């Protein structure tokens, strides 16, 4: 066992000694023979160096995407670094270093120009909709790039095409820092602005900005109805004239118009409509009693209409109430309307029931059917006694003082 250990130790020592021998310093110099200075992207490049000494240095090439190391081809002391086209697709500044044994021997830099011919134009356009009036604008940003997606060189001429209101105009722009931009103003007329750009015959895609109408201006309203009677059944509609902005553009479809109706009691009733081709329509039922309405319409904050007034006359002249023997059942009607016909179904009848002391006990409502209505006062809820009964119908009112008495359970 022991001899083997000695041999091992000896060999280990021998190994260490050899390492030490390597450390002896050696002279090594490099001389630049040729290096590229300005070139175009995609070109193959060549670096040549004269070497003295037996080391092979590496070439470190850095650009905006990162570093790459290259090995030389060494023939009789001359090192040639060939950089293929696929490594030079990025335009801009490149820096190179020759490195031997982690030591920088030489360094330099060169510029790669983008291709002259554009390949594609990237464009961004926004906002996608602006307001008419000529003060609002969209901004077009143009980035023409070469076949390797490098922005074209500074000063490249760009043509911006704009189509607005059937007129096409072309404006020049110049590339700066890789892109060009321009503010494109709308006009007083609403419509659509189409824009695009071209460089050396290469065109961008077509982009759009909608020029939407500006704020609404005051407008007028009218009403339409079948007759003037307050039958609570027919529909009255309020219509605006085409609402426009101050440039004469019809406001956008869907703009909300509020119609506020003030009746004689001072209540504000309301309906609303959305515009279609500038016209908004609001609908409401006729009242069921005589009334005088004042109507105004609003595009709130921007515009309002004039005030118009509409009057309704009562459709019912009078009505009958027939009580049962115990006064617990009331039959109202037949109620006759303005043409001496039965009123339409659904006319509301209201019964206010007061105790003898004058306190309101309950309000009951029903609707006419075939011109008639009925109330039944159940004994369970209204014990026997004297009550004041007030019946209202189409704005008419009748009052009775009746004594409710016992009846059979129905």
């Amino acid at each position, binding site marked *: 066992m022991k001899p083997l250990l000695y041999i091992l130790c000896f060999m280990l020592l021998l190994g260490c000694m050899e390492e030490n021998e390597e450390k002896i310093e050696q002279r090594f110099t490099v001389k630049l023979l040729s290096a590229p200075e300005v070139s175009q992207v995609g070109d193959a490049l060549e670096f040549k160096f004269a070497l003295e000494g037996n080391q092979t240095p590496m070439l470190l090439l850095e650009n905006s995407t990162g570093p790459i190391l290259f090995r030389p081809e060494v023939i009789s002391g001359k090192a040639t670094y060939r950089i293929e086209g696929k490594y030079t697709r990025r335009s801009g500044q490149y820096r190179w270093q020759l490195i031997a044994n982690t030591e920088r021997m030489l360094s330099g830099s060169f510029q790669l120009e983008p291709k002259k011919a554009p390949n594609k134009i990237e464009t961004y*356009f*926004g*906002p*996608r*909709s602006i307001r008419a009036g000529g003060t609002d604008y969209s901004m077009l940003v143009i980035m023409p790039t070469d076949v390797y997606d490098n922005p074209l060189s500074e000063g490249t001429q760009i043509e911006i095409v704009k189509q607005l209101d059937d007129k096409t105009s072309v404006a020049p722009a110049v590339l700066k820092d890789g892109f060009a931009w321009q503010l494109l103003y709308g006009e007083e007329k609403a419509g659509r602005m189409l824009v695009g750009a071209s460089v050396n015959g290469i065109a961008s895609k077509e*982009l*759009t900005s909608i020029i*939407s*109408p500006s*704020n*609404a201006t005051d407008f007028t309203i009218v009403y339409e109805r079948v007759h003037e009677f307050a039958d609570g*059944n*027919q*529909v009255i509609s309020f219509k605006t004239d085409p609402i426009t902005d101050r440039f004469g553009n019809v*406001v*956008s*479809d*869907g*703009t*909300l*118009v*509020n119609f*506020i*109706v003030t009746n004689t009691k*001072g*209540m*504000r*009733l*309301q*309906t*609303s*409509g*959305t515009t*279609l081709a500038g016209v908004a329509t*609001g*609908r*409401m*039922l006729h009242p*069921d009693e005589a009334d005088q309405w004042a109507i*105004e319409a*609003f*595009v*709130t*904050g*921007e515009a*309002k209409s004039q005030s118009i007034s509409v009057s309704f006359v009562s459709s019912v002249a009078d009505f009958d109430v027939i009580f049962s023997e115990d006064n617990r059942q009331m039959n109202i009607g037949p109620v006759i309307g303005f043409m001496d016909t039965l009123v*339409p*179904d*659904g006319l509301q009848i209201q019964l206010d029931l007061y105790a003898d002391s004058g306190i309101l006990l309950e309000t009951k*409502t*029903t*609707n*006419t*059917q075939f011109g008639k209505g009925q109330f039944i006062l*159940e*004994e*369970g*809820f209204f014990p026997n006694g004297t009550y004041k009964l007030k019946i209202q119908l189409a704005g008419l009112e009748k009052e009775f003082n009746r004594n409710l008495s016992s009846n059979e*359970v*129905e």
Partner: protein
Amino acid sequence: MKNTNSLLVLALFIGLAFHGSGIFFTLESTYDALIHLFFANHYADSWFEPWDYRWYTGFTVQGYPPLVHQTIAMLSYIGGLKFGLFTVGLLAILLFITGAYRFGLVMTANRRVAGYTALLAVFSSTFIETLHIFGQLPSIVGLSILLHSLPEIYMYIKTGKAKFLLTCLSLIAVTVTSHHVTPIFGMVFFIFPLIGMVVMDYSRDKVNSNKELTFGVFFRSFKFLFKRIVIFGFSSLVLIVVCILPYWINSKKNPITQVPIPHGSRDNFLEVTSSGLVFFLIPWGILLFLIPYIFYRFFSKRYLFFGLSMTMLTILGTGGTTPIPLKILGETAFNILTLDRFTLWATIMSLPIFGEFTYRLVEGDLKEYLQARFGAIYHRILGAALAGGVLFMVLFTMSLGYFRPSQPDKINMLPIVNFLNQDQHDHWRYLPLGFGDQMAWLSAQTKAMTVDGNYHSARRLPELTTRAIERLENSKFRGVEGIGSLQQFLTVPEKYNLKYIFSNDKFYDPILYFCGWQRLQQLENGILVWEKLNVPPLSSILAKDEVAQWLKIMWGIIPISTVLLAFCINIQFMWYRVLKSRKLAVPEYMKYTITYANFPKPLVLINHIWAILMVLILCLCIYVFYLHNDTQRSPENVIMAYYDALDFKEFERAHSYLDTENQVPISQYMLEVSVTDGILSSYAKLDAITVTLSKETELSAKATVYTKWVTPLERIEKTYFHDLVKRDGNWHIAPSHLNTDIPPDQLFSQTGTSFYNHGRRRVTTQQTHHEDVLKQPVLEVLSAKLVKFDGQYSVIGELQNVDNVPADVVVKATLYNDEDNELANYNAKYHMKHKLMPMEITSFKVNFEGIAWSQTQDTLPPTFDPDEFTPTELEEQPTKFNLQCAGNVANTDLYKAVAFQKMTLDEKRITGELFNSGIQEVTIPLLLVSYYDAEKNLIWVDHTFVQEGIRVQRKQAFHYNLMSMECVSLINSSLDNCFVNGLPNADIARKVIPDRNLNHAYLQLQPVSRPDYDFLKLELNSYVGNPK
């Protein structure tokens, strides 16, 4: 043939045929099976990674022992998840029957009796319920393996041979990894009594007769066996801890913060009869008739400890019927454990005794006694009654899921899965509504994530853990609390990146609409997809709780290893037994066979009395049930039945309760029903009903019915009055008045502007092109204030869509204190119109609910009730606010054709009619009422849901009770910190409508003469349930 038990073979044959084919029809609609399937899917996808992002915004699967899930996962590699599920189901059946047999053998030492035990196990209603209704596979597997381990434990303690220690421990390890609760409680309720029995047997060996077996003898034997018991007990404890160590660590790290979720097994079974049926009557089944015999046998000397255990289990299984379980378990355990498992164990424990009884009845001493005493016919009748009872329970339990489905109809998940996979929809979270437990099956099929989940012990979001709700998906069944919890998620979906909702239940539609969601499309399977605009997608890196590598490896490897090990160890003996290749010694426990002779005669009598008593109770129950359900026997009953019928939309039944003489024809009634719409008739669930009768005579009565309805929006209380009459002995309801209003014309036409927005203009999987991204509509905040009302903070204001396109609006308010520390943030819920036409204005109010506050612990009200908002007590008072409004182009739900008319106003209330002038039926109108002071400054915003819908071209009356503004105080009114689409509001106001005429808005206000305010504004938000 001596050792091959024909009864066992028969039991296995029938069991596999019956249950094996049954599970294909039942298992998928059970409560739990699909949850286990989801877990299995998790393991199949990532075996060693315990974190799953798909539920509860991420949770760990280390909260449940993994063996069954991992087995299904492993089998799924062969034939898919469902193949795995059913294979494990079949294995569970096999293990259970053989387990019951071995348990029977160790208990009775009689192969014949054990055979009967196995046969009865097949038909035991408790097993059927656990498997076919609850789907608790891990529980069954755990219990079955535990039963298998019992003979081995017996043998070890009796003989002390290491071989048996190895076998029993290997089986206990499998039990532990399949179900955690089983071995822990199994230790107490099965193994301790078994040890007691061993000691008893050991003592019996020392003496000559049972009489001589005194406590002293027993104690000496116990001392002798103590070492073995300790070795076994300690090793089992080590296994319980080590085998699922990650589980224990996880439980320690994430203690269950969940507030107790009500479970039927904790109910008082006498009060909640449905729980009594499911958790007491069905599991016990036919055993109920044999209780005297079972307890008589269990309290014999040998089984004494089983008797104690059995008594305990029986009592614990009664849930909240008596206060004893609560006292024994303590508040915490009582509220965490589901107590049905105790009944399960009790009934399984009684199986050998039931087997023994059957043996004695069929071929033993009982048969002889009965035939001698009552004759052969009576014996046969008795046997047939018993068999019939067993059969009835089997059929009843199996059909329970058919007649009372616990789940919605089976949903075809493919369209949903496809939808989630399309167009990057899985970059957002989704939420299923009304899916039942099938939501787990949906989750298993997709990588998309949901905020909901189906394993509530694993929840982490305080929004969920502080609510006693099972799932958001079925929140309507938890009443106001459930709906409240759901509303929080719907109001602030941005917080959870929740963008899509799959609705299988129309009930939730209104709340979705009023929270600002919109309908996207209906999938082929009828599921309606809702979406919310302005929700950011999930970030590509999501947070998770990391656990140590070694825990992950343990979790992934140990469970399956325990099975392999147990298999290797035990199969050898099984092999010997089956092939008889080597002669095996007769097991120790087989020495204690008793000869069944001289069936105790008093017991026959007692059990007869008991059985008759049970039959009487049963009849009484049926009679009470009949009285209670005889719908027209009393005025209360008919009212209850009528509202029950309305609640379940059984209109034909409802119609049958109406007065026969003044009756509306059924066709007329159905027509009237079909034209009524609104929140109460279409979206409400009856929560409580009280009937008071007045003027009750022999033949007539008046009923005042106070009802409480849970609607998706809020709790509604409504009082109805009915006249009741009695005709031919039956009570009837007098029909009520119907509005006879008719519109002037038959046909209407309407023109209008409609909008369409392409999902993707270009069919591409890339990001949407820059020019296809729509500009966000510009909004302008007209006023914004921080106010305090009744101790509650709100941000109110008005906002206008000043763009040319309709806008969907989201308003988010944040509160700050004087030091600019954020206190709370929340979104406007339904106190606003979420969809605005160009130039439309909405008032809005943001209330700060539970989860909005940053220190949830201090400020959170204990339970959320949308009606009774608990004001939050804060040390720091909010003094400033920030308002972020976002507009997105809207193209749906833009119905504005409702007019206010015929209004009257007094000091207390405003009444009027709403007229629907358009051609869509408005299902639920929401009335927003804003209060203004004399200078027309906004003071407060309030709301009310009009309870009836508005039909096309018709009017609907409404009324609103005016509030007092005396308790509103203004804290801050400013437009400084208001932003629209991220831009300052002031810039927008300056640019878009520079010369705004404020008078326009003022002219539209309704003057009112009140001391505390001077003007009102009414606005309407119309929900159209079925857009045409």
